[in-house]
């Protein structure tokens, strides 16, 4: 049997495509968590982004408005979270859950009129170069701009946190809000910004799903990806580069399940669908077992409220 080398390239490209929303949402949440805020509303912000992007694309016909609109929607919905947790000092976990429940409800409410409408074709870059290099051609070329952005984002995020002054401020706020505050840093403002940035990235991740990956609106179409993105942040031990590895593993699990069904492997389809969730649990156990390592890499003030008068 001759295996077409370009076919392998296509499979790898499809794994990367399914990793895109996870990378985007995880990198956004990573910044939020690095500033000491645990936002469990990723799933809610993502689904809001998905419906906003799809609805704006259908109504305005402009892909650019749709993409940026979805990010703005993510920002707006995360503003609720930021206001509650930072200004009114509410519990991060409960507020994040409320955000997810609210987001799923609101998205279904708005999305009612968009069910069954076909999506638009999203332009891809470097289409012509696809066949020029064997194996690498389909991997490197012929993808959307969001795809390329997603694979650059972990490196940008890493550079931002390690090498820029603002990145240092974010880390300082997350690791020791008291000392940061004493240095004259406005802790609340930094955290607001990080939460809103996380919202924008989740919104973009959702828009990628409804506009590029499977161009249509289906209720609940994020299907737990927001939660997997949260798990990926723990998996990465708050290191953006490792998010890339994790997202590829999960993307791979999603894609392999399709191919196993296609080859006719006699495993119940439900088991294959459950695999990413089960693997997430196993990975979390393996990563967290070393409690010392987790403690060292977790932002020290993660999930704890900070109030200046305290």
């Amino acid at each position, binding site marked *: 049997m001759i295996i077409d080398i370009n076919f392998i390239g296509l499979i790898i490209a499809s794994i990367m495509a399914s990793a895109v929303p996870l990378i985007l949402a995880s990198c956004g949440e990573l910044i939020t968590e690095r500033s000491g805020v645990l936002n469990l509303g990723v799933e809610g912000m993502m689904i809001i982004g998905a419906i906003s992007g799809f609805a704006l694309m259908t109504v305005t016909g402009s892909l650019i408005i749709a993409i940026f609109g979805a990010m703005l929607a993510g920002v707006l919905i995360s503003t609720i979270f930021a206001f509650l947790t930072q200004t009114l000092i509410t519990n991060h976990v409960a507020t994040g859950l*409320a955000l997810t429940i609210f987001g799923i409800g609101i998205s279904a409410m708005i999305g*009612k009129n968009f069910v069954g409408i076909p999506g638009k074709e999203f332009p891809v870059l470097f289409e012509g170069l696809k066949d020029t290099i064997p194996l690498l051609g389909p991997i490197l070329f012929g993808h959307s701009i969001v795809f390329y952005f997603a694979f650059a984002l972990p490196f940008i995020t890493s550079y931002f946190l390690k090498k820029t002054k603002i990145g240092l401020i974010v880390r300082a706020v997350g690791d020791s809000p008291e000392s940061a505050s004493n240095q004259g840093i406005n802790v609340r403002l930094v955290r607001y910004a990080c939460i809103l940035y996380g919202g924008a990235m989740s919104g973009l991740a959702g828009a990628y799903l409804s506009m590029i990956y499977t161009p249509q609106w289906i209720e609940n179409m994020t299907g737990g990806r927001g939660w997997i993105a949260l798990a990926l942040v*723990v998996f990465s031990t708050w290191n953006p580069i490792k998010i890339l590895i994790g997202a590829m593993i999960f993307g791979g699990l999603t894609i392999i399940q399709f191919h196993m069904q296609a080859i006719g492997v006699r495993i119940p389809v*439900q088991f294959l669908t459950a695999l990413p969730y089960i693997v997430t649990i196993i990975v979390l156990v393996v990563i967290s*077992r070393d409690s010392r390592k987790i403690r060292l890499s977790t932002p020290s003030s993660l999930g704890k409220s900070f109030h200046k008068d305290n």
Partner: protein
Amino acid sequence: MIKIVKRDQPSRAIFFFTPVLAIFLTLVAGGLIFFILGFKPFEALKFFFIVPIADKYGFSELLLKATPLCLIAIGLSFCFKSNNWNIGAEGQLTFGAIVSGGVALLFYEQEGFYILPIVILAGAIGGMLYASIPAILKTYFNTNEILVSLMLVYVSKLILDYLVVGPWSNPEGFNFPETRQFSDSAKLPLLFEGLRIHAGIFLALAAVVISWFVFYKTYLGFQMKVSGFSLKTAKYAGYKGKKMIVLVFLISGACAGLAGVGEITGPIGQLHREISPDYGFTAIIVAFLGRLHPVGIIFASLVVAITYLGAETAQIFMQIPKYTGQVFQGMILFFLLASDYLLFFKIKFIGSKK
């Protein structure tokens, strides 16, 4: 001028007043949303919150929906009080339903007084088994219980799907994704002729009484409270933290499992794909709205149950999408958390005249 002052102590009166405030604010915001969607706000709110429970049948439906919410929320309050974030009650409900449904199917076409207690017990055990996974992973492997319990929700629903489509599907069921109907001895008795409210409500009431006793009259309840306030203090006092974590998860899993039993042996009478409209998630809101207090949870479960009924009624009569229910549930929690600010801070109005 308005000035915000920190209270010396959280106000107890406000502790019980803010849930009422949150419900009121939710109604206002809900009316606003209806207005934006192009409905008459007061009429929509009437269809949402009053019409569904205006008659005997509606009231029975309210209790029917409040029963699982109350049961699960009582269980969750054990976890939340002690700072354990079990958010996978939906999975524990589903797994409890699977185990008890399996047992009920074993007794297919058999009758006997002993069947129902076995079926109920099986559901509680199923829920406990499923809740023990995040608990054990948290205590012995330091794994985040939020993510594990949530991932298990998806897994449980897929297990259920596999069973009702595959090995457990009704052989005479024309390939519908459902099992056989349980025998009458495996079903909870109905309380009134013609109404769907069933004996499961007594399970919820029993849970309320037992939890009240445990919270306020036992050493375990005290330990939970201390751990909830400060884990360091609990450690210093020498409490066996790990044992307690496992225990609260088991209690909460048992309650969610029982809620699952109530659904499948009550109104449903068999297993199929959709045995719960996310009761396990909504119960989180109920637990908070009820202030993790058994009596508060009764009231909260009734209030939140209305959002389920209201969503159905509003959809039929006004073509308002049924997801409005979830939007209301999310808003209640938002407003509740927000109004908790008043617990710790006083808003003072300072007049300009002297």
